[in-house]
């Protein structure tokens, strides 16, 4: 990982700031003059991971570019809760067109900036997992294939939350949604479906791909900074828990995100030109139950008789990630 951990401080680099850290060791979020690109008064639910992830990412991008950022937003929670006409929470130039065309619109905005000679202006396209992995996927793949100068950020809350929690191709197996009910022989979302867009992005051989989590702010900021420092198509996939859709307590958003990472279910890695260049090694590995249990979307796994086969199958996914991405402490693959 490109992040340098600080050792032997009260909290090391785990907290957002810490008075004992030097200025350059603190995060953008610790700065009293952070841009708050997504301002107060937005209508996201209590404890919204997406609102938090969006501010983390865009504030970091603003700092990296000297506030020269424009954003194109796909339809979804982020668009709806931030910008109900005529109000907006965005403190940056911001554009919304359709659900599925954010990548294409962003490609156009980047072309327009180039034509106008505004080389310093950086374009970000952003959307939820529905707008990215399903509906906007064609436009996204096209943007990657043309290597357009855009950073695309996907805030992954693992379903269509804005319209009432319907399954997307980012919904994990066994999760209950409005369209994968917890009924029948195999309740919840089926195994063996869905897609891993970070790996698909890597297959396009674009300059930079990374996954990040709201539970690891430093890692997230370092990745956004890295992405802003290079040209061409870049993709960052940020895991953002949704208290409403996942059935978790609003106060637990970061804890749940952390458990997703530490269980191995959401691996943090980065890749350049199609090759993995870094990964976050688990600090305190936990069994998947610890991640699943606090979420009502997995409650059917923990009934009177726990569904041990399904839990074991989810654990196998985590174990595979740990092997595949070299997440165990000290592993080098």
């Amino acid at each position, binding site marked *: 990982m490109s992040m340098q951990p600080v050792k032997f401080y009260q909290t090391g680099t785990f*907290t957002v700031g*810490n008075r*004992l850290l030097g200025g350059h060791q603190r995060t953008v979020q610790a700065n009293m003059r952070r841009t708050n690109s997504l301002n107060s*008064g937005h209508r996201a639910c209590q404890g919204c991971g997406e609102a*938090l992830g969006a501010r983390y990412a865009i504030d970091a991008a603003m700092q990296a570019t000297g506030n020269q950022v424009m954003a194109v937003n796909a339809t979804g929670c982020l668009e709806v809760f931030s910008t109900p*006409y005529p109000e*907006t929470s965005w403190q940056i130039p911001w554009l919304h067109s359709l659900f599925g065309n954010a990548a294409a619109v962003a490609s156009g905005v980047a072309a327009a900036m180039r034509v106008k000679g505004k080389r310093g202006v950086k374009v970000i396209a952003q959307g939820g997992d529905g707008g990215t992995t399903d509906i906007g996927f064609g436009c996204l793949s096209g943007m990657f294939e043309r290597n357009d100068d855009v950073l695309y950020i996907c805030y992954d809350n693992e379903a269509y939350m804005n319209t009432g929690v319907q399954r997307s191709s980012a919904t994990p197996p066994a999760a209950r949604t409005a369209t994968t009910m917890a009924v029948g022989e195999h309740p919840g979302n089926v195994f063996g479906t869905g897609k891993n867009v970070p790996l698909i992005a890597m297959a396009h051989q674009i300059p930079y791909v990374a996954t990040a989590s709201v539970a690891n702010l430093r890692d997230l900021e370092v990745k956004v900074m890295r992405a802003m420092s290079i040209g061409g198509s870049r993709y960052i996939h940020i895991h953002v828990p949704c208290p409403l859709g996942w059935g978790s307590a609003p*106060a637990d958003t*970061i804890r749940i995100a952390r458990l997703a990472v530490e269980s191995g279910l959401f691996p943090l890695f980065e890749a350049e030109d199609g090759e993995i260049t870094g990964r976050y090694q688990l600090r305190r590995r936990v069994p998947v139950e610890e991640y699943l249990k606090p979420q009502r979307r997995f409650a059917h796994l923990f009934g009177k008789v726990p569904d041990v086969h399904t839990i074991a199958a989810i654990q196998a996914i985590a174990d595979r990630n740990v092997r595949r991405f070299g997440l165990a402490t000290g592993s080098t693959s």
Partner: protein
Amino acid sequence: MKKPFAITLDPGSSLANHTGSWRNDRPVYVDRLPPCNNACPAGEDIQGWLYYAESGEYHRAWQELVKNNPLPALMGRVCYHPCENACNRGTLDEAVSIHAVERFLGDEARKHGWKFEIDESPSGKSVLVVGAGPSGLSAAYHLARLGHQVTIYEAGPLAGGMMRFGIPKYRLPRDVLDAEVQRILDMGIALKLNTRVDNILDTMKAGGFDAAFLAVGAHVAKRTDIPARDATRILDAVSVLRGMETDAKPQLGRRVVVYGGGNTALDVARTAKRLGASEAMIVYRRTREQMPAHDFELQEALDEGIMVKWLNTITRVEDTTFTVEKMVLDAQGFPQPTGEFDTIEADTLILALGQDVDLSLLDKVPGLAIDKGTVKVDRNMMTGYAGIFAGGDMVPSERTVTVAVGHGKKAARNIDAWLRGGAYEAQPKHEVARYDLLNTWYYADAPQTVQPVLDILRRQSTFDEVLGGLDESNALFEARRCLSCGNCFECDNCYGVCPDNAVVKLGPGKRFEFNYDYCKGCGMCAAECPCGAITMVPETI
């Protein structure tokens, strides 16, 4: 011009939307009592001084420390640090080595010649302190800070009380003790050595004192009846340890038996070893688990080759032959004789069976309550006679240096209030910051720093200090292991994790405040606060 719908309004800011109205619970910043502070018998604000030590401000840290305890170099060496037993970090990995940092700060003070401050202007009142032990010195110091004229009468030839005449040099080097005492005397406190007080009322009257604090300690060794021939050498631990501070070093012989199971028994056995005894054995009638001595001190003694005979009593002594009887524990855990006897050969028997207080100076004082050889005091540390306060080993309480220092402070504050015609009211205590209130994910993994230990050969033959101190780099590291339980240390987590930007950062040293106009009450700030300094309070609707 008629515009189509949806572009008729200019863009507005979402700041118009006060999402604070959604809230059921509101986050509130709190300060909780750190468990270390709660456990400290001297009432030190440990977390408070560690806070400054963490950023390398050692002088400021020392100043914070001595607000409650004037003897850090000494305390860092001899205190049994109940703070570290209470430390939440002990549950996480290992407790912060508070005593080692305290000792480091105390040694820095000696190195740089830091001096005490006097907080109040002269009160015109004069207070007598009887006894220059930890309690008397602490009271004198605090009274001087509060502006009173203080005189100490000490019966012994040197100041320090049991710190000098009870604690061996290898645990407390005398230059450390002398420096700490001198710094207190430099505040303008008069010390009269070799001045025994026989009648406190007469002494007070003669000296024109407005109040007195008595802390004469417990220097009278307890005896037990062991049938013995006149030729047998039987000494008591108090006089052996006291003799070490005078020119007449005690002659103990080659084989020494110590009878008792307290820290004094260990001290005297280790002293005997250093004086050249080839065998030093402790005889104790109970088990290791029941021994009142601290286990780490026992371990140090065992390392040095001290032998211990558990579950034995000495029944008879004839010249150099000691008869011991084996004991067993009954169902209540009390030792009972078995009738099985054994013999040990030794030259000297040293009794370490505890100490009593010489209360003769109070004989003529009316209205006192005496309880098992100690003077009863009320919660203000005042005896039954108005204006006479007491503390340390002579009042009913645990007998440690730290408790004595705490008594001195408490008594000084009460004497001050009494002299000014009021009553001292301690501030109400905050709720203790329990381990389960912390979010320990955020604390970096950092094991305790190990203090250097003197090599075993030199521990057998010399009185050099056994435990070494920390240097600047590892003292800083150790201070920074503090979790700051229950009190904000400005890690910026709440400011960072709020999805609604409803936490306002006020700048270095000023902490944070909530913007309740936008706080939705999700509770993420409270959940992610490492030290438990935020609590959620239900809104009243």
